[in-house]
């Protein structure tokens, strides 16, 4: 039983509210800034109540992109978001497929150096993209994959995290289930598709959420690979927008774009929340 003490309760709530305010305030500011005209936003202090221009500003961000005075050219958010979407979904789906297969091999097959391979995969958990970025870039460049979706996605697909998660899940699947399938005459791939994958679907959903957000938030890798504006992702573009020196920024539109960039990950989390929690917490057996 959890103790019920009013003072502790109040303190707990106070802490939670404080944390929420700290996290939510910048997002609130972005929404507010996106809802005013550029003149209003440029005042000091900036208005803290919503204005009337939200839809117009966001629509401009979506279809035209912010105009930077002194900087020519701007990519509309819809193109950038499409790039991000392609990248995030490809990474998530690719990671899930590869991880499912490698976890399947590691858990259910006996082959030479099995443990060695598992530990190799496991060790790459400790190596983030940044550590291996130069050799990876060299390989991608040599393969002629710069400024392509393949180049954006492929090097990020291998995932120790997902392999490890699926391995843990597969190990909880009772041996009897495997044996029952063997007696029923199901071969390894049949077992994989008919039984293992359907059982793993909540974990797959959880993995999809995590990896979608991971893919969506990639910054460094697209920065290197996508020099062509056609392949830029929205995270990258936002970063570039405010780097132009001495430019006159169209803040409401930029903020509108930032809010737009937030939406897909939020949507994915909200829509898949039930599965996500299920996948991480419970196992259906």
């Amino acid at each position, binding site marked *: 039983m959890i103790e019920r003490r009013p003072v502790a309760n109040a303190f707990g709530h106070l802490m939670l509210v404080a944390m929420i305010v700290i996290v939510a305030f910048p997002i609130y500011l972005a929404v507010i800034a996106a809802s005013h005209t550029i003149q209003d936003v440029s005042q000091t202090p900036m208005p803290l109540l919503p204005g009337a221009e939200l839809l117009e500003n966001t629509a401009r961000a979506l279809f035209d992109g912010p105009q930077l005075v002194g900087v020519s050219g701007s990519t509309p958010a819809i193109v950038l978001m499409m790039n991000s979407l392609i990248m995030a979904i490809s990474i998530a789906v690719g990671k899930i497929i590869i991880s499912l297969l490698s976890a399947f091999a590691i858990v259910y097959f006996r082959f030479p150096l099995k443990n060695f391979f598992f530990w190799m995969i496991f060790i790459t958990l400790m190596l983030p993209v940044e550590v291996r970025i130069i050799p990876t870039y060299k390989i991608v460049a040599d393969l002629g994959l710069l400024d392509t979706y393949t180049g954006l996605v492929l090097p990020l697909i291998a995932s120790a995290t997902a392999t490890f998660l699926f391995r843990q899940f597969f190990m909880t699947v009772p041996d009897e289930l495997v044996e029952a399938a063997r*007696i*029923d005459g*199901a071969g390894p791939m*049949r077992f994989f598709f*008919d039984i293992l994958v359907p*059982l793993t679907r909540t974990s797959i959903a959880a993995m999809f959420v995590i990896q979608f957000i991971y893919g969506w938030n990639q910054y460094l890798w697209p920065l290197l690979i996508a020099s062509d504006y056609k392949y830029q992702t929205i995270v990258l573009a936002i970063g570039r927008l405010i780097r132009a020196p001495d430019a006159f920024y169209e803040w409401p539109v930029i903020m509108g774009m930032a809010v737009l960039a937030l939406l897909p990950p939020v949507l994915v989390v909200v829509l898949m929340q039930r599965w996500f929690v299920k996948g991480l917490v419970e196992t*259906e057996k």
Partner: protein
Amino acid sequence: MAKVTLKGVKKNYGPVKAIHGVDMEIADGEFIVIVGPSGCGKSTLLRMVAGLEAITEGQIVIGDRVVNDIEPADRDIAMVFQNYALYPHMSVYQNMSYGLRIRGMDKADIEKRVQRAAEILQLQPYLQRKPRELSGGQRQRVAMGRAIVREPSVFLFDEPLSNLDAKLRVQMRLEIKRLHQQLGVTSIYVTHDQVEAMTLADRLVVMNQGRADQIGTPGDVYNHPATTYVGGFIGSPAMNFVKCRIDAGKAVLDDGVTLALPGGWTAPAGSYTLGIRPETLRIARPEETPDLHLDVDVAEELGADTLLHGKIGGQDVVARVPSNAGFHDKSRPGLMVDISRAHLFDNESGLRVAV
């Protein structure tokens, strides 16, 4: 349907010997129960017949095929697992038909077989349900249904009732028995529960540390246990074992109690272990001179019977007497021993000594 023959079947896990060589002939349609405590190798033996464990040495023959190198799916067997091993995401119907679908059987034939199995097992109302929506007993029936639809020549049961509560276990035991009478398929059934073993078996295999100590009918195993181990394992409460010396037609226990042996006993003089079942001890009637006196520590009343736990000459002995005899803790009843139903075992090997 088929005979099953085990010829010198052995199993080693590296240097560890799990099964030391089992020989057995199982007749067509026979119900064999393999019984023993956990770790005795009974499940391993069953899994070798199923093809889930490799056979280290020896041969297993099902029908007239040596199946040592045949995949489980091709051995013409079906297995029921302790935890049911139903596919959680499939409905009852899909669970039962999965093996048939893999075989590429015709949809109409599958439907016919599943419906028939569902009828036998009274599962028709549940065919579209998922396993998690069923009770333990229903799940167990689905597991059996999955075995029945295959129409195999051998059924293998691996402790199928262990996960059920006591009442349901009795009910399912009867259903398995009825099912066997109905289908007449050769069955091998593994359990650690001696009641299941005694009630279901045509013949029992009592396993002890990787050896089959005795193979015989339930009556045989109970009345003529081949080793002290079998005597102690089958029967509840367990058989009493007392050390004794046999000399000149008498058995002398440690504390000097002397029991006259029946005329037919011809065991040579020497030290033995005498096996006396608790139910072959009875309270001496007033006019009789008791064979021995039991110093009762604890009297366990079971209702109809009372178990008297005590000592004779420092050796633990249990007697099962009617509750109305009125003996309690710390009493000292005089008992008669039905020595003609006692068993004599070799002290060293634990083997039964012919008398």
